[in-house]
């Protein structure tokens, strides 16, 4: 049972780390600001969620698990709010929303 939990939490941690790297890669590689917000959301939801789940399996039923849940709840509510406020502020300040980018040969 304990070995099973170890393997499961290992997989969750690796997946979470992979999603964090993918999100950060998207943060660097995507061209438009509004596209980058999606990449940042991958870090906040998938990456952080999976890593916290992996740590939760390691913690067991202790106070540490409660703290991990508090962190998860904080990210769950605060990070979409921050992303929404960010996109809203960018839109309000007149950052352009364009469907088509300049020719892709620029990259």
């Amino acid at each position, binding site marked *: 049972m304990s070995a099973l939990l170890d393997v499961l939490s290992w997989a969750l*941690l690796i997946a979470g780390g992979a999603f964090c790297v993918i999100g*950060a890669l998207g943060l660097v590689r995507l061209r438009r600001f509004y596209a980058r917000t999606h990449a940042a959301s991958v870090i906040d939801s998938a*990456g952080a969620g999976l*890593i916290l789940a992996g740590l939760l399996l390691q913690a067991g039923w202790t106070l540490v698990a409660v703290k991990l849940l508090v962190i998860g709840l904080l990210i769950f509510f605060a990070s979409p709010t921050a992303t929404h406020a960010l996109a809203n502020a960018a839109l309000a300040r007149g950052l352009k929303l364009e469907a088509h980018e300049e020719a892709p040969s620029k990259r």
Partner: protein
Amino acid sequence: MFAAAALALLVALVLALVRAVAGPTVFDRALAANAIGTLAMMMLAVFGFLTGRPEFLDLAILYGLLNIVGTIAVLKFFRYGDLGDPGEPEAKR
């Protein structure tokens, strides 16, 4: 296994830092700062498990609270140009 997760988080932190330095607009930098905050929280949590001292989770909670307040404050400043502004009514947007 915690070391692998910590390594992945470090790579992600460096990439987010690249965007924060290179970002053409202030919103790109704010977005990258927000992502760095989330990644730093994860890093603190994983590091606490890595060294066998889960007390680091308290620091992660504190960092998360500061992160959300900082992001909202910066965004409010760049949207209204003033931290004390009550905000515009919805219809005027």
